[in-house]
């Protein structure tokens, strides 16, 4: 493990004025400002590379609560990190289903390959490895996450290739999403600041569509109704789409 530089913006330990302004902006989205605390802490991570004491103070100051109250929240949630995180947070699902399907083997292989333990960062500051809980993609098991983007149907070989590519700076794409951004950039999106990548990636991965495919093959649909719905063949749907616009007014 090694130290990763904490921040380019926090000279002398304080948050930049821009970050401070954005923290206020988050708080203003809610009827009660304190509701903004979780996204605010995501923004602290985006700006500082981790939850820093200064970040905690800033949140407390803006929300008019104590630093202890903010700390209590920051330490409760697993996505908040008190130690610097690498450019790429690599998660391996080791909850039961993924573990059985190969997640345990993959996690062991990556620890060995990267020479780190759980929740540790490689010497070059590129990768933080962590085993994660079920990430709601069980039909793509074994699942890995890079900066909280899906990497589906992994094997020990594809997992080691993935981390090698990330360390080498090769552009990597999620199997169901855009090119992988850095951990800090990802945290900024979670704080509610768009990176305009929503239109990248497919509508759905193959497993998400497998039942729909079976239905299409067999001509199965939800029952039609008199009002005309979204069922039927694609051609019928197309024919219906015009009147349907006017029908609901």
């Amino acid at each position, binding site marked *: 493990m090694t130290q990763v530089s904490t921040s380019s913006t926090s000279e002398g330990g304080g948050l930049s004025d821009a970050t401070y302004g954005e923290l206020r902006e988050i708080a203003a989205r*809610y009827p009660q400002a304190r*509701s903004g605390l*979780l*996204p605010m802490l*995501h923004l602290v991570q985006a700006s500082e590379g981790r939850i820093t004491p200064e970040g905690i103070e800033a949140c407390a100051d803006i929300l008019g609560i104590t630093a202890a109250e903010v700390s209590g*929240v920051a330490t409760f*949630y*697993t*996505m*908040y990190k008190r130690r610097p995180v690498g450019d790429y947070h690599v998660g391996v699902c080791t*909850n*039961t*289903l993924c573990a*059985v*399907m190969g997640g345990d*083997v993959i996690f062991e292989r990556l620890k060995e390959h990267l020479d780190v333990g759980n929740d540790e960062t490689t010497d070059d500051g590129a990768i933080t490895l962590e085993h994660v*809980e*079920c*990430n*709601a993609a*069980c*039909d793509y*098991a*074994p699942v890995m996450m890079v900066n*909280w*983007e*899906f990497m589906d*149907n992994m094997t*020990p070989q594809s997992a080691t290739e993935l981390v090698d590519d990330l360390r080498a700076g090769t552009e990597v794409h999620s199997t169901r999403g855009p090119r992988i951004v850095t951990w800090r950039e*990802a945290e900024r*999106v*979670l704080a*509610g600041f*768009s*990176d305009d990548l*929503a*239109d990248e*990636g497919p*509508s*759905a991965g*193959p*497993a*998400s*569509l*497998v*039942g*729909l495919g079976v*239905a299409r093959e067999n001509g*199965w*649909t*939800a*029952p039609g109704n008199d*009002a005309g*719905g*979204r069922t039927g063949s694609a051609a019928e*749907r197309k024919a*219906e789409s015009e009147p349907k*616009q006017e*029908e*609901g007014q």
Partner: protein
Amino acid sequence: MSTDTLTPVLTDNWDQDRSWTLAAYEERGGYGALKKALAMRPDDVITAVKDSGLRGRGGAGFPTGMKWSFIPQDNPNPKYLVVNADESEPGTCKDVPLMMASPHTLIEGVIISSYAIRANQAFIYVRGEVLHVVRRLQRAVQEAYRAGHLGKDIHGYGYDLDLVIHAGAGAYICGEETALLDSLEGRRGQPRLRPPFPAVAGLYASPTVVNNVESIASVPSIIGRGADWFSAMGTEKSKGFGIFSLSGHVANPGQYEAPLGITLRTLIDLAGGIRNGHELKFWTPGGSSTPILTTEHLDVPLDFEAVGEAGSMLGTRALQLFDETTCVVRAVLRWTEFYKHESCGKCTPCREGTWWLVQTLANLEKGIGSEGDLDLLLDQCDNILGRAFCALGDGATSPISSSIQYFRDEYLAHLTEGGCPFDPVASTVFAAEGATS
């Protein structure tokens, strides 16, 4: 009237080009149901959802329309709608693909539902660990505002609604609705004592409806096509369709949308059978918190009543399938470690109990202990079940007590063999490919 085996409604547009965009959604008649709802009285919208028989799709199965009708309209505080998009129950993987492929289905449902309960502010609380889903939701909300589906005086009906996408930060407990509300208030996600229920004192101590993604996403189809259309599908007390998520040792894992009451036997058949050369050993009907079932339950109709009678729960229809290569003790230990990790620490039975469960189970898995430890485990479960503050503690006991019920001999085999008799590599997907070397 006979219904087809699979009935794609929520999944029906997932194969459409750029299905997540407003243009694609509206091309298929999207937001038509919203305009229809806005022309109705809010109480009539609630009645329609009640009449449809829609029951909560987040696991508990509480009637959605009834939940809405509990909102006291004479309460002077603002009303809130909060969508529970914190999909984290192990095995559950339906809401995430829905929000990824068709966020507007959910958003249209949010607007109709908020209108029905007379809320002017809604939130989608989405778990933080699904970045691209967060992006798609943020973009869809932006598009909906621009199109006048959200904001002030929506489509000239004098109704205002604001919607905020709120990303969580990694805590399974936030899927519990009162913990979710505490989290949304910027606190540690710990459950609240009930009563008062959220309908009376929820977010900011104001009347609040908390519903699962799939429940809310089902609302536009109910309003658009009628309560009768919805209730014509499903079984007597479990109406409509639902997404069944098959994962594990099956040839084609994935999402299968069908009327409630379909059986696992049919679903496995549609999914190409259990993986080649293997047979089903045990499965969860609705996530890890629902007691496991075995091959004797293949013909149980997957609805709330029949799965309950079989000794488990329908839950979230998260069907995790394990074949004969899987060690049930290893599977249960891993789930138990999960509950221990995710216990919020608020109540003693769960906080302390899950630690004891892991300790006892971990020893058994290593072949350490005696047959009496099985009784000890069941005793520990007794001290958690019904005594914990929320359902997390109860859920932690489900895999243990059910696995001892069906696979007691396998636990004992660990003791007689001095460890796990299974080869963990044999259960991996890449076992046959020789990719493990």
